[in-house]
């Protein structure tokens, strides 16, 4: 059994607002093994992006990690000083942002931005750094990388820019990459190209990847394990095919049913009724209760996370039975 690259334990992230503390991430736990892809899925506002930024220790004010541990190779990131964190970021943990149009600095050339990243972490000459940057661009499938290095971000398409960002992430061979909806802003053909490229690049590397998305189909093709988040908590966790085939949490079921398919052609699309809850005003009990088709009186109390075997956990009083045997679900 190898040690996990990243181990998140009871992570709580809060935003102190005038209306009170907003708990955006609530007791989240998960591990990422070397070479493993973890998909974090959820609607907007479910806390998946904040989880990513909490790991990076890059929360915007007034966001703050209140409690919990974030262990990168056994080192608690929450206890590190600014300098140590700076040295880890970009080198041991890299991040890919959502909108490639906004991530690269518009007034600096690609080579400037790539080389400065290398020089921030490695003691190499400028020429060596340039060579490394060029190789990295070639690796992500950018044609004539030497020329591309000399261009500005606005001279590239969105897909190209996201490839550059992926190249920057992979360049220094980090232990962990956090990708925050990296294909959401791209159109479908580019999205599949990028996904294909990611799969290819990951296959011979031993790095962990957290892929944050709201798109279950992306997760199905890329991830090994999935964490489904709702209102700041992980409501269901498990291996990807098992979880998608036999979801136990009604919310996961709802997400899967919301994907338009051939079978539903001509019929009204299924959707989850209601909206994501206001995190400032959650009340007691299961936060999904008002939207849940399986809600009962017991849901007025908050469900515990329970293991259901095969590495799966679910946080629900009334999990969908077909996915589980009866004994395990009786929590």
């Amino acid at each position, binding site marked *: 059994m190898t040690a996990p690259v990243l181990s998140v334990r009871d992570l709580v992230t809060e935003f102190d607002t005038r209306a009170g503390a907003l708990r955006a991430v609530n007791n989240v736990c998960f591990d990422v093994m070397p070479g493993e892809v973890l998909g974090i899925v959820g609607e907007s506002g479910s806390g998946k992006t904040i989880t990513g930024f909490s790991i*990076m220790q*890059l929360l*915007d004010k007034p966001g703050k990690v209140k409690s919990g541990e974030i262990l990168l190779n056994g080192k608690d990131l929450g206890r590190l000083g600014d300098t140590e964190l*700076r*040295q*880890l*970021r*970009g*080198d041991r943990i*890299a*991040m890919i*942002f959502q*909108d490639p149009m*906004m*991530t*690269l*600095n*518009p*007034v*600096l*050339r690609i080579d400037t931005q790539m080389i*400065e*990243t290398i020089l*921030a*972490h490695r003691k190499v000459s400028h020429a060596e750094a340039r060579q490394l940057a060029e190789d990295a661009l070639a690796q992500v499938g950018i044609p004539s990388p030497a020329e591309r290095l000399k261009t*500005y971000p*606005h001279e590239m398409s969105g897909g190209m820019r996201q490839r550059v*960002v992926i190249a*920057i992430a992979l360049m220094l061979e980090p232990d962990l990459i956090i990708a925050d909806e990296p294909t959401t802003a791209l159109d479908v053909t580019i999205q599949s190209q990028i996904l294909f490229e990611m799969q290819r690049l990951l296959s011979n590397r031993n790095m962990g990847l957290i892929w944050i998305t709201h798109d279950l189909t992306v997760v199905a093709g890329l991830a090994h394990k999935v964490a489904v988040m709702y209102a700041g908590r992980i409501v269901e966790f498990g291996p990807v095919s098992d979880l998608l085939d036999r979801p136990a949490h009604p919310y996961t079921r709802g997400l899967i049913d919301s994907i338009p398919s051939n079978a539903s052609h001509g019929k009204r699309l299924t959707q989850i009724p209601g909206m994501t809850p206001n995190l400032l005003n959650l009340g007691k009990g299961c936060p999904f209760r008002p939207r849940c088709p399986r809600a009962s009186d017991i849901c007025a109390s908050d469900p515990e996370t329970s293991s259901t075997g095969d590495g799966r956990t679910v946080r629900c009083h009334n999990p969908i039975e077909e996915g589980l045997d009866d004994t395990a679900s009786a929590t």
Partner: protein
Amino acid sequence: MLAYLIRRFGQSLLVMAVMATIVFFGLYMVGNPVDLLINPEDDLAAQEAAIRRLGLDQPIYIQFLQFLKGIATGNLGVSFVHNTPALELILSRLPATLELAFFAMLLAILLGIPLGMIAGLYPSSPGSRVIMGGSIIGFSTPNFWQGLMLIMLFAVFWRVLPSGGRGQTTDLFGIPVSFLTLDGLKHLILPALNLAIFKIALVIRLSRAGTSEVSLQDYVKYARARGLSEKRIVGVHILKNILIPVVTVLGLELGNVIAFAVVTETVFAWPGIGKLLIDSIGLLDRPVVVAYMMLTVFMFVMINFFVDMAYSMLDPRIRIKAGKS
């Protein structure tokens, strides 16, 4: 690019022509220079001879045609008062003003940008509040009063700096300048600072607004996620983005500083073109005023042109391409 330059040049000529016409006729309506220039004790024949010599006996449109004819041969007219070519008179006073303006801009950049960035990066710190409070004072008190206060503090109470004049000058490429001698530099500090106060306040506010806006951008967060040092993020990633508006405004202000250094030059008895303009308007010395205005317009046009160039250097997205623009 060439087409762009030619179009730009044509526009400039048009603006200068319109400006010259307006000033020429405008000054005619203010008053008759004859009343101020002629010695009333001369006999009638001598007076008429003097009027004829200045060309003021002709109707105004003939005078204007004469003026246009002069321009065509590169002659902007002869000062009624000093009896020297107007352009020459202005150019002889220009280096003093340019020196003053240059140092004022230098102060505005060297003090304004760092102070503004500090205020933008740490908006709630006491230091930032002091900077922003200071910039409001710089903005809202009258410039002549600021000048008088500077003189009172530095020249009268503490007696560390002189209150006026250019001090000792040395020749640099045949042009007298003050800043190369210690005495000249001492004379330069107060007027340059006085001229700069408003610009410093302006640059502080621009830089602060830019910094607080840019630091929220994704690319700054991404720069942090790549583990870049704070020095590099602030000094390269943020600075280069906020420079665009700062350069634009400073470019426009540079014209203002040169053209309207009048107040500072008057308060500090700095022998520049601002002082010359005020005197010439007072005496209705039309050739000097018109020449001054045309030179000012020319300067504004040139400065705007260079600002556009600097702009496209800073922001690759608006680089001027051939055939587009």
